[in-house]
């Protein structure tokens, strides 16, 4: 799949990552959180940065915000340095947790943030856009997780950023809170703001993004429209029992040769085969081998997504 970004030569991309790498020192040698990400996001795109926990999403966002420096590679935000983009208020973020003073009110928090950007007006318009105008006088510490998240969103709005980054914005929210939060973001993105959000919920990426960038183990493993990425993740599993160890090994090798097989797992005497075409695999197993007790199951999206990110990364590891 190719990137769907459509940049015109005159305007710099909202976000441009080139060979981005981040390593953290640990007692067992450096841990590579981000392992060579190239990515270009055009102004106005709403992009989901989708991947399991530990895929390197937060590390990447930290580098885009200038909160950490890359081990290698470059980050450009609207053609400038992250620090410059922050100072100019062109990029803002809704972080996952923390970052709030519990003993001031919601309105005071947004008013202070606005003042730090040199804006002295009333915080009310930002509270309204984030859907928390009714909470203006509530102490931050008395707000629910979802309310605090919408407060972070209101704080991110005060600089009228051209690029908004959301790091797992709905973690810990209930269904209702999640819906309200996304309604506020959607209303805002409709006005043309570039939005990049990290998530490990496939449905969230599906429902709110135009483009999905799938990351796993610090790399981009798929990048395309939501429909394309969903197709990738809509396979089935065929599983069957083969009691003879020798035959099971031989069949595994033969299956690897079939073009429709994505991945093969062994669970005891059972073979578990991931494939977009279950008929071909089932026919092969039932006619060419001693396989018995065959089952075909369609995966739920979440399982498929985990399988996809795991296999894609393994394949790339093998190639490199």
């Amino acid at each position, binding site marked *: 799949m190719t990137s769907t970004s459509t940049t*015109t030569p*005159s*305007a*710099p991309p909202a976000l441009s990552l080139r060979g981005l790498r981040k390593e953290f020192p640990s007692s067992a040698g450096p841990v590579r959180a981000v392992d060579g990400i190239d990515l270009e996001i055009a*102004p*106005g795109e709403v992009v989901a940065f989708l991947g399991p926990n530990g895929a390197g999403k937060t590390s990447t966002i930290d580098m885009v*915000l*200038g*909160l*950490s*420096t890359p081990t290698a590679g470059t980050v450009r935000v*609207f*053609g*400038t340095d992250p620090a410059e983009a*922050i*100072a*100019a*208020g*062109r990029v*803002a*973020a809704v*972080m996952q*947790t*923390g*970052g*709030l*003073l*519990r*003993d*001031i009110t919601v309105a*005071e928090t947004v*008013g*202070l*943030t606005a*003042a*730090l*950007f*040199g*804006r*002295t007006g009333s915080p009310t318009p930002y509270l309204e856009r984030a859907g928390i105008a009714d909470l203006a006088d509530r102490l931050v510490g008395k707000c629910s997780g979802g309310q605090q998240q919408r407060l972070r969103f209101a*704080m991110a709005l005060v*600089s*009228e950023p*051209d690029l908004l980054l959301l790091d797992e914005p709905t973690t810990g929210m209930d269904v209702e809170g999640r819906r309200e939060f996304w309604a506020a973001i959607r209303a805002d993105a409709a*006005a*043309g*703001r570039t939005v990049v959000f990290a998530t490990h919920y496939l449905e969230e990426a599906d429902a709110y993004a135009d483009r999905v960038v799938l990351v796993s183990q610090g790399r981009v493993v798929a990048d395309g429209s939501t429909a394309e990425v969903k197709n990738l993740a809509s396979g089935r599993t065929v599983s069957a029992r083969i009691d003879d160890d020798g035959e099971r090994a031989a069949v595994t090798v033969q299956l690897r040769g079939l073009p429709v097989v994505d991945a093969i797992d062994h669970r005891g005497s059972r073979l578990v085969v991931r494939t977009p075409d279950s008929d071909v695999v089932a026919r092969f197993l039932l006619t060419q081998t001693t396989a018995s007790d065959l089952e075909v199951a369609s995966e739920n999206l979440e399982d498929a997504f985990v399988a996809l990110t795991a296999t894609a990364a393994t394949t790339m590891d093998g190639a490199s």
Partner: protein
Amino acid sequence: MSATTSTPGTTSGTTSGVTSAPAARPRIRTSTAVRAYLAVELRRSLRNRRTLIFSMVMPPVLFLIFGLQGDYANQSAGHGNVTAWIAVSMTLYGAMVTATAGGASVSVERAQGWTRQLRLTPLRPAVYVAVKLAAAMALGAASVLVTLVVAAVTGAQMPATAWVLCALLAWVGSLVFAAFGLFMGYLLPAENVMQILGPVLALLSFAGGLFVPLGDGWWATVAQLFPTYGLAELVHAPLGGELGITAVVNVVAWAVIFSVGAAWRFRKDTARV
């Protein structure tokens, strides 16, 4: 809107509806930010019951308990009476506690992710620390005033110049402890550092001769090493206490140690990426 100074590559008219060229953004005046932030900090102090008790209630109450004991209260001590002597001690204690708490709150807010959030704004980390210290000093001034007013109406006697000088010395001297709070806050990994620093301050006050006279024993010599010793001597000097060179060296040395320590940790923290 003029786009003449926009970044290279951005031509006027190519940006979409909600976006505006960087040149159109208002220049951020630090004074606006600092004034708004100070106002928020002062409101937070006034709302915080714990802060008010430790800064505004405890010092005058300690003074009332220890400064008005019948047997010695009206004996003279230097240019004033013993009551005045103890009032000055408690005034310094209140200013010290307030300044330490103010400095330490930086690390508490760091643990809460607030300083990280601030890095997503144009506010510079050094300005943030300056605002926190200014707010702590404002509260410290109030603490000094409250304790001295209570002392004045309950029988403390000293010359007018001594009242003014003691107040100023206690207030300005407490900056040493603002640096102490800042430094310790960065060093100690506790979410509420003051639960450790509060008792530490009380012990230091005993050890350095702020709460009880040091006498002539061996402890009087050891006490000269504590950071409370120099300041205790200094604030009592206007009352006629002898201000030895040891006390001055003590104040300067601890001021340098705490400030350099705090600056070192601060640099390390803001550079940590």
